[in-house]
């Protein structure tokens, strides 16, 4: 008897909720894309031909038919009385998350600065009403898009020595960073010690018999600026000796630092990233 009462309460509550919701659902009959296209013909045609429409079509034709309401919300009232007041013209990120649920949480976890600053999906991604011509439907190419807020990093790519595919084509930020928390960003954290860098710079892969400890502990960025630098090799110091001596303060007396060739530490200690034969890193 003790179990019967709660069960009845739950069933009763659900029945009441169902009765309340039923007329609302009936009033909001789904409005297919074809109906919207009767007025918004250019927008609908561009959406279907664009990357968002094509991606939806790839999942199912039914999903594409529901496309307008998925983002802009129930449209039955708007069909009866076309007005900007009774349709959601500027969907929030919640609309995107209704399909891309796996992406919504990642932002909170890996780049909490974005949600804290109210960066919404549509701040970075195009809606798909036309083809922006970028990967992942970004509003701009990543270097300009991210550079709008991360100006210091964007400026670094203008420096003489920088990660560029071509003279006027800096690496896309998304080559190394994944703001949604899967893929490269996750790998960057997990692999540590420059693991992401090594996915391209495979010649620097370890393990080494004689590793260079700073690289093992803090990775490539101990000595290199990953975005760009005024110094050759994207080093953090212009003089190699400055970089090395800041840790190796106890240089033996046979290093005459007044000689330029001695100040170029890497001339002798060529295996600076690690050696398999020499503890002094003189040979690979």
């Amino acid at each position, binding site marked *: 008897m003790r179990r019967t009462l709660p069960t009845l309460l739950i069933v009763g509550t659900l029945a009441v909720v169902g009765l309340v919701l039923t007329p609302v659902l009936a009033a909001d009959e789904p409005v297919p894309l074809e109906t919207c296209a009767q007025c918004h013909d250019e927008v609908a045609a561009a959406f279907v031909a664009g990357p968002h429409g094509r991606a939806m079509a790839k999942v199912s034709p039914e999903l594409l038919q529901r496309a307008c309401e998925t983002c802009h919300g129930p449209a039955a009232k708007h069909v009866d009385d076309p007005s900007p007041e009774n349709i959601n013209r500027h969907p929030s990120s919640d609309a995107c998350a209704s399909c891309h649920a796996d992406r919504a949480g990642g932002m909170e976890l890996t780049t909490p600065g974005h949600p804290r600053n*109210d960066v919404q999906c549509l701040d970075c991604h195009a809606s798909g009403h036309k083809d922006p011509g970028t990967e992942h439907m970004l509003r701009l190419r990543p270097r300009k898009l991210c550079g709008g807020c991360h100006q210091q990093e964007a400026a670094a790519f203008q420096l003489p020595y920088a990660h560029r595919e071509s003279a*006027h084509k800096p690496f896309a930020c998304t080559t190394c960073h994944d703001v949604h928390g899967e893929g490269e960003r996750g790998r960057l954290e997990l692999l540590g010690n420059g693991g992401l860098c090594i996915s391209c710079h495979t010649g620097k892969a370890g393990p080494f018999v004689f590793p260079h400890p700073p690289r093992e502990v803090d990775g490539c960025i101990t000595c290199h600026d990953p975005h760009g630098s005024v110094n050759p090799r994207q080093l953090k110091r212009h003089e190699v000796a400055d970089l090395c001596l800041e840790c190796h303060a106890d240089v033996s007396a046979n290093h005459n630092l007044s000689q330029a060739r001695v100040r170029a530490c890497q001339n002798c200690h060529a295996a600076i990233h690690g050696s398999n034969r020499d503890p002094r890193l003189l040979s690979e």
Partner: protein
Amino acid sequence: MTTRETGGAARTVVLAALAVACALPLAAQEWSGSAGAAYTWQSMSGNEESFRSQSNLQEGFTLEDLTLLRKDADGKDRFTFQAWGFGNAEPSQHAKLGLELGSGWSVAVRYDRRESFFGLAGGDFSARGDDWQITRWNGKIAWDGWSAVRVTLGLRRVERGGDVQRTFYGLGEQYPGRVALDETMDEATLRLETKTLPVHLTLEQSVASYERRNLWSPDGGTNIDANDADLLTDLGTTYRDKQDVPTTVATASYASAAIAVSARVLWSSADLDTTGAGWQEFAIGGGPVGTVRFVDDVVSSASTDTLAGGVDLAVALGRGWRVNLRTAYRDASSDSALLGQRLIHVANPIGAALDLSAPIDNNGRFDFTNTSNEATLEYRGSGWSAWAGGLVGSRKVSWRRTTDDPGEDVNRDSTGAVAGFSLRLADGVSGSLEYRHGTFEEYVFRTDPETVDRVTLRVRSQLGHGWAVSAHGRFERGDNPASIASLDHSSDAGGIGLTWSAAGGDASFGVDVSVLSLTTDTGIVLPGGGADLSRYDLSLTTLTAFGETTLGKVRLRGSVSRVEDSGNTWPVSSWNGALRAGISLAQHTEMAAYVQHWSYNEDRSNLDDFKVTRYGVALSWSF
């Protein structure tokens, strides 16, 4: 200067893509695409190799774009192909191919090739030269035909070949030599990813194999200062380094309106084995005195086991309150061994010889454990949010390079705090201010800053009519005690950017000014025992402007960038700019002319200065 090997690779990639495209069923499909090519002339003064070290551009042909897209009648992409860069003028070649084969099968192949050049006349790298190529193949075969799981097989191959010029140390001198690169990496990855479970799971197993078989040879024989009578007469190696790295990565993530959680773990066990010998031979006094030959006849091995993981959790507590928890752990444990002998063979001109050998039996280790935990409490109000939190971490590093090395063992604990505030007003103005502070008391390296304070400020505003302005500032201070390195680090950065975009998106303009002032003082001990200071002083101003618009049938696009470092360490200034004008000749066809300019000037030397002007024409067509 080398002639770029472009024709063969370009033909192979393009023809392979077209062959695959044509093999697809023809019924009810449509093609679209674009193609563009350019020829660039180049005039320059100054050090061309310095210019190539920065951009590696040259005169010649470039494929600006080749895009092919084939769609089904129902709008599904069946075939995509994109390529750019093939030609003498660009250092890069890129191509990617995507195929939808039906029944959930898809194939993606990416090809990248880059030529790297490095050759400076001045500075610390004047004895170093690079002229090598790296080629990367990346393929993925995915099966998405099962509603529950997506399966992906990834295959990667990386090849690096070419030459490096560098110095080799011997007999107290530096001798120029060459390294012929022969490096490869092969990797296969199987990835499983759930699609319908409430918890998103991925499991990735990869096996990578690296191999280096680089060969040495002497380059001239005299030492780099040309002031020593001893000559390097032989330099060589049969070294072969091979690494096998199996890696397992698993992730789990779940997100709802109330909670988001992500957990990940990585396990990797990497093994290295090396074989072969390396040798140097010198003619003492040029030969009349005799020869000495050094031989390293050693084998080595190393293994590293890595366990890394972390959990991130974000919980909405209700009424705008949230809590974020992050924890990360990484443990890497390495053991190494070096076994063999070092030989010295001394011979005089009349044939008498002496052999000396020293056995090598060395063991080393490198162990590293890192943990970090961060908790942040956050309140999100209407148009604003505030957060504050703390972090604790630990780092244990222990290593011993050689059997006789007493080694280093460092355990340290760190703490920190963070607080921030962000605001988003209805009229499009938003901003944030964050303060971070961190500290610890034990040092792994003497240049570790004991305390770091950082303040970051960002402001953005949508001014309306397509205009937006943003500004940022970052102030950072770090130091450690005089007994360690007397480190004093200060970094101040700021900038302001203004952009405008036309409503239709066919015109835009932007200008950005960024400044960075960085000064680091580190106490050093000179070889004679005296104290000195290593100071790095950077005062960098970067100005960038870009714009594009259409005037009738003419499409204009331009950018200009000015970099000036007026810091005391090594002041430099540079300009670069580009202007391109394209005119529609007919439907879907455009011809363009462009000019690009670079200048680079070092205040204290003109060895690596240059001025380069490039100009060219381009033709593009789309269908």
